[in-house]
């Protein structure tokens, strides 16, 4: 009982610290990171856009691996892991899809363009949207878990094909944050800080989601 209480308090303190980190991160993005000369304030979207894209990709792949684990062992803990990682990955995929056009409008003059990474992300988003539709459509929970695991595996197998096909189709994406040399020190610092914050936030969301699945 005492151990549970202490653990609960520690968790709450940690979450408050993370909330503070997010606030500091937003402050740094708004006031500390310098304005990019050609893109202006729109470039600041990338401090969350790029880490969100990384979270999305890693979490979908982890979700796919957990789905393989579920299909082989049929143990619920793998399914809980899969749904948690895929749900949070989907959330960050949505953030990527929303922030991409927000950047594109002032910089390219259009909300949507069939630009390679945006298009790939849309395809991946649609594949995993199907994952939730399938899961909620089937009444038999065992079937829902098995079939959604298969869909997650197929979705993960599709990611490299989507990336390759769209890249060949639409040409190469302009590299904005591809290396340390392209960024001034202040921008690089805020970018790394944002990355840490986004990954911690995503980790917390997965942990809470998995806990909720485990406790029904």
């Amino acid at each position: 009982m005492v151990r549970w209480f202490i653990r609960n308090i520690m968790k709450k303190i940690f979450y408050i610290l993370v909330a503070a980190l997010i606030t500091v991160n937003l402050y740094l993005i708004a006031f500390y990171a310098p304005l990019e000369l050609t893109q202006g304030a729109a470039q600041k979207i990338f401090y969350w856009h790029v880490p969100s894209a990384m979270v999305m990709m890693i979490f979908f792949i982890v979700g796919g691996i957990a789905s393989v684990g579920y299909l082989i062992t049929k143990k619920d803990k793998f399914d809980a892991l899969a749904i948690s990682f895929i749900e949070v990955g989907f959330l960050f995929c949505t953030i990527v899809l929303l922030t991409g056009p927000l950047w594109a409008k002032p910089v390219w003059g259009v909300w949507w363009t069939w630009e390679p990474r945006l298009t790939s992300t849309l395809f991946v988003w649609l594949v995993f949207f199907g994952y939730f539709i399938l899961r909620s459509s089937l009444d038999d929970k065992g079937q829902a878990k098995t079939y959604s695991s298969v869909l997650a595996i197929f979705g993960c197998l599709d990611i490299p094909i989507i990336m390759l096909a769209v890249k060949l189709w639409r040409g190469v994406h302009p590299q904005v944050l591809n290396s340390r040399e392209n960024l001034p020190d202040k921008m690089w610092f805020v970018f790394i800080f944002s990355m840490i914050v986004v990954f911690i936030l995503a980790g917390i969301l997965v942990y809470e989601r998995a806990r909720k699945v485990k406790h029904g």
Partner: protein
Amino acid sequence: MFIALLKKEWLLTLRQKQVFYSLFLFSTLVIMLIYFGLEVLDVLPKGVVPPVIWLTLVFGGTLQLNRTYDFERDEDVLEGMRLIPGIATKFYLSKLLTNLVMLFLILLFSTFIATLLFDYPLMANLSNIVIPLILGLIGLAATGTTFSTMVKAHHKRDILLPTLFYPLIAPLSVAVIKSFSSAEPLVWIKILLAFDVIYVTASVLVFDKMLEG
């Protein structure tokens, strides 16, 4: 056992001749509707015909793929199938082969109708369109057969199947359509081959788990 399963599939399929007529009529209607939609263009570029054939195959094929488990839906046939040891792969391959043949028939018919309605020089372009269409057809049938297993017992399967597997075949569609017009079709054909190999293999590997439910 595989031959017996295949025989069963075709015996039952051939009994439903109205399905063939419906699929062919549907394909004709899709081509006509696309033609009307394209009429806003003063001159109809001949390059649109192969993508029209592909889209007709996707839409017509979806109707066929949704029928994959029509014969097993009633009277717990699948429950009985599950009891036979080592049947999963053979059962999947019999379903896949049936869908491949049915989709191929839709493809042949759609090509004929599109050639007729669009006055398309088919023979001159045959070598450019055959391989992408066949490889696309295999990918479509492989993913469609697997996904129809997921929705086989669902009363909303007509909506569910395309919702689930169209996003997955999006890169397949891009590759098929690009290989018609690309200066380097081989790159796209390699993508199509990779897609087919990956999805047929993955489907065979997961099917026994899917059959268990």
